[in-house]
């Protein structure tokens, strides 16, 4: 997927199956774990096992009854015996049916329960897992830990449960044959090589083809997901045909592998059946030879029985030999699940953690060092304090570490060194839930759940009534747009909000956070998608509702941080400046330059200044004679007001004040890229002219 579409992570449910990872635990351990989970259903499993044993025994007896029937009518010709055998047969059939049914039924209960308990265990662990894990993994992959792995597990368990009954069938059939004649028993072994061949084929080539086929169809699925996510882009640029062609090639590849796999599976069945037939033929031959002669060992009924028992040998044998392959994917699943279950979250309540005290307020960073990846510190020895009730802005270039600070305050991560305090309580010693209860974060990327707008807002406070929510929305100016939506507050949000406008999504997240009514508020670019007017409404609301609460405002836009009493300026993870707006501007440091190049980008002052500077430069060069031809290309698109301001300046000041020239020179030296090339050229000329008079060193840019 593109990096920003509202689509879920790509790969779909199969995304994961593509890569085959090595198992990291021995089979014994994994089997042990499976059995352990089954242990919770001991009673059911035992009952099931008994039932399945009985059903198996009955299944073996039934051909015996038929054999006796054949023999009795043939040799004895007794009507009564026939009748009782018939009834016995019917009774056994019914018993076997009921037993089998009940067994399947209760086993499915056990299995469903087992899947559920594994799922819930895994889910609990994942919800509590460290954020770094979630950041590194695609949500789709994480989800499949919960869904497909648990299901895979249950298949394996099914196979394991069947193990006993298959082994029993196999043993009983073999013994019966042996009792009739050891030759018969030995004959039945002709199926062994065939079965081994099939199992081998399936386990090696089959497995490989299956994986390749899954991977190919995973690619198709991933591509469809991506293309659907970017459908509006494809449409905007008329690229549907190319995408369809690309899809065709992936589809063709998936077909190719799918075909191979199916052919393999298709050859499996006739192979099996034929092996069965050959065994039947062999059995018939041997049984026939034993039934002839002066002293026949076998009766006709025995021949029938012997032939019937071939099935009792073959299918269990097949099942048992395939078991290894079938169980393998569940073992892999168990392995992945175990990874999750055994992983210890780093962020947990410390032993003896206490609730955050009511009076603890204000945020203190003390020599905080933090890194996401080893040895690449993102925050370097950061120390600052935010007093209770104070609103402080954090600014800095992209990647300066602003969002990281917000994450640390929420204790999504623990700092590597140093400590973070709320009041005088180190947040490491505070119960997580009381900490998070006390503060609210509006994350940089608005995230909405696929639920109604009302429920999304209520997420901030589950106890809030509808009226409270509506009231709040009115204050922040969200009510007007929510009300007019198709279903008002009950409008269902689809795909994280693709049916809302970008600003509306942000408004909903703001409402959600404000509803939480936290003691400490952290706004990470919370109003970046709002126009200045709506932003001011939100700010007013914030003023009204959260006056005098500790607040951190992170923003690129100057307007957003206007209300902050102090500003912290970060650069590459270092707190470089702090103070009030005025102090910082006076300091002429990073903030000043940020202010000029970045935060003021919405304003006019910079462009007018720049234009004025250049215009004056031009004036100097041309002696104020003919600025006209150059001006339009330089100030292309200027509003006429700016133009007039400029010409006024040009008119009134014939000469450029020397301090302005000096400023220009410095800028050209330090940050030539910030000046458009054409202007740069001109400036260079101008400065070249004045160089001698100023007496400064030459080489103001080349």
């Amino acid at each position, binding site marked *: 997927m593109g990096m920003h579409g509202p689509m879920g992570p790509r790969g779909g449910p199969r995304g994961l199956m593509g890569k085959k990872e090595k198992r990291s635990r021995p089979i014994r351990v994994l089997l042990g774990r499976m059995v352990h989970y089954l242990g919770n259903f001991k009673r059911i499993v035992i009952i099931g096992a008994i039932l399945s044993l009985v059903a198996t025994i009955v299944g073996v007896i039934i051909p015996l009854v038929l054999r006796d029937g054949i023999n009795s009518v043939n040799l004895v010709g007794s009507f009564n015996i026939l009748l009782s055998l018939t009834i016995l047969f019917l009774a056994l059939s019914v018993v076997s049916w009921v037993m089998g049914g009940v067994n399947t039924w209760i086993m499915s209960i056990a299995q469903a329960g087992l899947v559920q308990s594994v799922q819930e265990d895994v889910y609990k662990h994942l919800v509590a897992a460290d954020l770094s894990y979630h950041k590194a993994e695609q949500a789709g992959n994480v*989800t499949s830990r919960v869904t497909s792995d648990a299901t895979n597990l249950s298949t394996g368990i099914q196979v394991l449960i069947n193990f006993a009954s298959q082994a029993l069938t196999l043993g009983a059939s073999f013994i019966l044959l042996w009792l009739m004649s050891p030759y018969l028993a030995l004959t039945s072994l002709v199926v062994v090589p065939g079965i081994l061949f099939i199992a081998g084929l399936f386990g090696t080539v089959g497995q490989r083809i299956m994986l390749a086929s899954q991977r190919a169809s995973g690619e198709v699925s991933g591509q*469809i997901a991506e293309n659907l996510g970017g459908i509006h882009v494809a449409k905007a640029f008329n690229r549907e045909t190319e995408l369809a062609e690309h899809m065709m090639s992936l589809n063709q590849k998936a077909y190719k592998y799918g075909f191979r796999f199916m052919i393999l599976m298709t050859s499996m069945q006739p192979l099996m059946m*034929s092996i069965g037939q050959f065994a039947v033929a062999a059995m018939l031959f041997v049984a026939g030879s034993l039934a002839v002669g002066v002293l026949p060992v076998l009766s006709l009924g025995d021949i029938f029985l012997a032939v019937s028992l071939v099935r009792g040998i073959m299918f269990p044998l097949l099942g048992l030999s395939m078991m290894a392959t079938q169980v393998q994917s569940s073992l892999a699943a168990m392995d992945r699940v175990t990874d999750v279950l055994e992983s210890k979250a780093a962020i947990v309540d410390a032993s003896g953690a206490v609730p955050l005290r009511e009076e603890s307020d204000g945020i203190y960073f003390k020599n905080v060092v933090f890194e996401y990846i080893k040895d690449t510190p993102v925050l370097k020895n950061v120390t600052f304090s935010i007093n209770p009730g104070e609103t402080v802005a954090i600014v800095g270039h992209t990647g300066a570490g602003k969002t990281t600070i917000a994450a640390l305050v929420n204790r999504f991560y623990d700092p590597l060194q140093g400590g973070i305090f709320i009041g005088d309580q180190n947040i490491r010693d505070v119960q997580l839930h009381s900490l998070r209860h006390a503060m609210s974060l509006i994350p940089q990327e608005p995230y909405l759940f696929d639920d109604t707008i009302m429920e999304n807002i209520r997420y901030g406070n589950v106890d809030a009534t509808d009226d409270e929510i509506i009231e709040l929305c009115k204050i922040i100016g969200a009510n007007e747009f929510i009300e007019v939506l198709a279903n008002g507050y009950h409008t269902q949000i689809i795909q994280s909000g693709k049916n809302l406008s970008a600003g509306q999504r942000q408004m909903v997240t703001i409402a959600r956070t404000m509803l939480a009514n936290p003691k400490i508020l952290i706004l990470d670019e919370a109003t970046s998608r709002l126009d200045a007017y709506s932003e001011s409404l939100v700010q007013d609301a914030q003023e009204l509702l959260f006056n005098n609460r500790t607040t951190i405002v992170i923003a690129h836009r100057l307007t957003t941080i206007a209300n902050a009493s102090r500003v912290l300026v970060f650069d590459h993870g270092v707190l470089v400046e702090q103070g009030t707006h005025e102090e910082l501007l006076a300091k002429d440091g990073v903030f000043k330059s940020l202010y000029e190049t970045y935060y003021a980008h919405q304003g006019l002052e910079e462009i007018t200044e720049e234009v004025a500077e250049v215009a004056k430069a031009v004036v100097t060069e041309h002696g104020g004679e003919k600025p006209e031809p150059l001006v339009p290309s330089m100030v292309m698109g200027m509003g006429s007001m700016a133009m007039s301001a400029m010409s006024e300046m040009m008119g009134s000041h014939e000469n450029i004040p020397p301090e302005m020239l000096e400023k220009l020179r410095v800028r050209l030296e330090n940050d030539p890229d910030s000046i458009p090339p054409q202007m740069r050229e001109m400036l260079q000329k101008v400065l070249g002219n004045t160089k001698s008079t100023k007496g400064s060193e030459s080489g103001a840019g080349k």
Partner: protein
Amino acid sequence: MSRNNGGETIRKTPWRYMLSGMTRNKAVATVGLTLTMVSTLLTVFPAVFIGLAAREIQNTAAMTAQFVNYVWLIIIFGLLYMGLFFVGGWVWATLTLRWERDARQDFFEALQVNSMTFHDEFDSKRLLAVAMQDIQWVRFSLNPALRNIATGLASFFITALLLIQMDWLPGLSTMLTIQIGSYAIPIYGFTIIMLLGFPIYLIFSYRYANAIEPVRRNRSENMEALTSITQGVFQGIEVVRAFDAEEFEIKKFHDISKSQESLTAKEGKLSAFYLPALILAGMTTVAFAYAGYAVINGIMDVSQLIIILGLLTALQGLNFQFPMMLLILRGGFVNAQRIVDFLNWEDPMTEPEEEVLDVDWTGDVVFDNVSFRYGREENNNPHYAIRNLSITIPGGSRVALIGGPGAGKSSLLKLLLRLYDPTEGEIRVGGVNLRNVSTKSVRDVVGLVEQDIFLFRMTIRENIAFGRSGASDEEIISAAKRAQADEFIVEMPEGYDSMIGERGMTLSGGQRQRLAIARAMVQNPKILLLDDSVSAVDAQTEYLMRKALDEVMKDRTSITVTQRLRTLMESDMVIILDKGHLVASGRHEDLLRESEHYRRVFERLPGAQELLATISKRGGVA
């Protein structure tokens, strides 16, 4: 379009859709079916040979050549079966897998062709599930389900024929008779068993499948919900944490997984008791008694009893496959229904029958009383994103669009790109109604940089080239330069060949926006629409970018959604929208004077206060 199948798999009813896998190549399908039937024959007959061999032994009490022949026959039939079945399997595989491939391709292309209204209506996760799973299950319903059912029915049928044929053995027809008056009506035992038992078996199988299907569907729908909720939570895990809602989510998951558990158990219970198996056992019992009676009476010999029992026990094998296959077949219909519903979706957006080709794209853009609602007419969305908007944008002008959240700015741009058609009113460019221009032509000349940038999982080069097929390297680089993207691209280790996405680079917001602008630049649009596309780009870069854009867009119309004061002032025209209504439009200076609303918005813009101050110093607006 690469649709190799001519939309062949797209049919209007679920049944026909399902069966199109068979019907689209009838000859091959017939061959496949025939092979399947014949190979079934080959599996039924060995039971007969066993009986015949037993008779040999009974009659001769020696290993005769005939006996050995029967043994050989079984082996030969086994071999034949193997060959035929394999060929049949091959045919089926080709037939159904090709169908699956083409159906998926067709489905995807159909989705792609559908307008944005469609994509707004449906969650793409669901579309993906249908494209992958549902189509696969429809294929399953043909192969293996239909194929196995055909096999099952064939073996049933052949067995029935063989048994019924026994009724005509001399003596058997008179063994049991019903005396009505002076007539003795013979009872054809096997015929009755088969003719009665067979339909009952089928009826009960059908009812079985019918009873389970809804539960099974419930379960898979519940599973879908579970997956989607889970994924939503993991995607938004930061939000969950921030609101300390872990317990809440765990509870929610507990509930839904518990209901999943009970649905699974319920399905297990229903499917555990396959009643038809009992019916088959009953048939076997009756046949056993009947044939045994005949043997005792000397009408049949024991070998025939062996044949009968052999045939009937072989049928028991059906009990394993038949119910599952029926379920798949039955479910396949539901899957087909879902697919067909999507395919039959009526698109409100239609291409003109006769397209106007010579449109002056640099002409005036006129919105004539345009109203727009998202969604289809029949959904009756009461909410207008744009309401009675009438405005004329002179050709070649630079327009700035402002308004609060949900004002309709993005919607207006999307209308110009003909991603949607207005619900009422019309949009004219150079005097031509956009509806009379094909979407393709419109999108060829109108370029949009969207608000939420979407980049594909491709290299940077490919992403930029996405703007126009066949863009040369020079064009790509010059577009990147114009968008001020070149500077950061060349600094990447792999430059233009850096992968974007998953394991590739992660780009900052500003970088993404610049790539998207480069992508639009490559297209060389006649009308350029920028939806808040420079919000994360710093002032200096933006300034350079605008200059470069202006060069390209000379005499062409561009519309920019913006929050920036400077852009407003530089524009030839400012349009203010509020909740879908046009509030005011005109030049910045005029608006300042005339529009209360604009003043209110303007005052809030950063830098405006200072500006207003200088203006008042100089005595009002020029």
